[in-house]
């Protein structure tokens, strides 16, 4: 793969027409389309290596287990985790955060304690903590978001008190598209002995993640946003913490010995993988992450980066040029920062246009072939912070071209003319 067109050609779903128009898929923040290598793996498993993992003495189960565990190793490499014990397979970001919220809080959080979440969190990084805190009498507090979309780090410093038992922050907000300074957030928390969970639902896609360099205690992400099959997900956890936490769910595969009186648990990572996992989706993480890694290496990496930069610069200008358009999350300093680094903007733009309601814009764009996201985007507190009930979001992946960005803006301008 040397060009964006060659990347695109790997994605059958991108080749289709909708309502007679070429599809322009800009809802990548919600889920990515799948490359042929992932489609092939899923098909190969359904037609061949389909048997339950870790359980049987037969060839098919061995094959499925090898693919499942092979994907775990691929994930470990992709985020540079120390060992396979650090990599828990879950059904996605939401399940990963629920696991930590429930299990960590049961062990380490009590009456009057505080869980600190970032104010740009989506519901998956709010509600699990609320549920866990309700059970143990603790409280969830949010780090405020500044007008330009950055986290209020001054406020964060003040909020880090002895009562805070864990900090859970977005790596990149799914609405604002700004890379948060997670390194600094972690260092400040660690200075007080507080562990940090990083929600990497968007981060894994748009930033290079090295969990050891980042020094996070937990990193959660979904496979489906980074080309893998839906239903795959990962929780990276620091081994001491995962060892100390009680199991989240009980069932098959997570046990050592079971009697009616007492059960001992399987060692990591299986301790947290009760029941039959979605082994085909998890196995698809291997080709998906290989694909993602290839786009970050050699010549194509430069092509992708140049394209992303061009799309970001183009959209900043073109959207700002539409009368009454407000982009959420556009810090001035972002321009000078390298892509994926703290403070930088990813190719994800949420905005509102005066006198044009988001769902109206989306419906008209849809009929012109353009798929965008609108609504609360599972991020109601952040919407409230900006005084709106809805936004439009266009989010890009390396398979999106500058021409698509241009067609999107032209279609948007047409929709605006119709609505005004």
């Amino acid at each position, binding site marked *: 793969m040397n060009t964006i067109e060659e990347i695109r050609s790997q994605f059958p779903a991108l080749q289709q027409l909708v*309502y007679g128009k070429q599809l322009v898929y800009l809802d990548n923040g919600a889920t990515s389309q799948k490359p042929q290598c992932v489609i092939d793996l899923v098909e190969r498993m359904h037609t061949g290596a389909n048997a339950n993992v870790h359980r049987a003495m037969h060839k098919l189960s061995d094959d499925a287990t090898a693919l499942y565990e092979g994907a775990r190793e691929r994930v470990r490499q992709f985020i540079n985790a120390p060992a396979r014990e650090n990599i828990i397979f879950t059904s996605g970001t939401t399940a990963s955060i629920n696991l930590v919220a429930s299990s960590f809080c049961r062990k380490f959080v009590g009456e009057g304690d505080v869980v600190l979440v970032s104010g740009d969190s989506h519901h998956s990084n709010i509600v699990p903590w609320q549920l866990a805190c309700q059970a143990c009498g603790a409280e969830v507090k949010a780090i405020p978001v500044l007008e330009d979309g950055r986290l209020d780090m001054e406020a964060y410093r003040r909020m880090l008190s002895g009562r805070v038992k864990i900090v859970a922050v977005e790596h990149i907000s799914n609405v604002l598209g700004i890379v948060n300074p997670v390194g600094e957030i972690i260092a400040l928390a660690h200075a007080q002995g507080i562990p940090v969970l990083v929600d990497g639902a968007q981060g894994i896609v748009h930033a290079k993640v090295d969990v050891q360099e980042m020094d996070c205690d937990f990193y959660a992400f979904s496979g489906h946003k980074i080309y893998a099959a839906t239903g795959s997900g990962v929780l990276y956890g620091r081994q001491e913490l995962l060892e100390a936490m009680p199991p989240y769910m009980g069932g098959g595969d997570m046990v050592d010995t079971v009697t009616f009186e007492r059960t001992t648990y399987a060692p990591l990572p299986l301790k947290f993988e009760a029941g039959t996992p979605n082994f085909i989706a998890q196995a698809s993480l291997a080709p998906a992450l290989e694909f993602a890694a290839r786009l970050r290496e050699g010549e194509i990496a430069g092509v992708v980066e140049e394209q992303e930069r061009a799309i970001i610069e183009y959209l900043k200008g073109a959207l700002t040029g539409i009368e009454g358009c407000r982009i959420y999350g556009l810090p001035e300093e972002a321009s000078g920062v390298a892509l994926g680094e703290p403070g930088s903007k990813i190719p994800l733009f949420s905005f509102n246009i005066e006198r044009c*309601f*988001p*769902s*109206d814009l989306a*419906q*008209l764009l849809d*009929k*012109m072939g353009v798929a965008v996201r*609108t*609504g*609360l985007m599972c991020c109601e507190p952040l919407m409230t912070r900006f005084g709106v*009930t*809805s936004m439009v979001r266009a989010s890009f992946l390396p398979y999106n071209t500058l021409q698509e960005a241009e067609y999107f803006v032209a279609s948007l301008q*047409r929709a605006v003319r*119709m*609505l005004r």
Partner: protein
Amino acid sequence: MTIKEIENEIVEEFAVFTDWMDKYEYIIELGKGVPVIDEGQKTENNLIKGCQSRVWLSCRVEDGKLYFAADSDAIITKGIISLLIRVYNGQTPADILANDLEFIGKIGLQENLSPTRANGLVSMIKQIKIYAMAYNN
């Protein structure tokens, strides 16, 4: 006119549009029309909440017939609402309950009734039926 007759009239009106954008242009024009509910009636009680847009609906009864007023912050939703009101206004609760709404599908706007759109329209139609049930005696 009966509900069915009004529905057929709308279907005929929409038959002239061969292009999606023309159809939406027309719905937007309908949506931009006269305010369909008094601001004072846009209360929490009359609010139907969706993830995408909000819809307000109120109902009054006169001589055994129902009259609706509604609004939405999305103009396309509002345009479809104005069609719904045109169909149901001045009808009896019994007729409204007996009606199986067909015109929205026939004019190609079926996807607006999909629950995943969460634009409040499905809940609004349900609410109209609930009003009809309450006044049906």
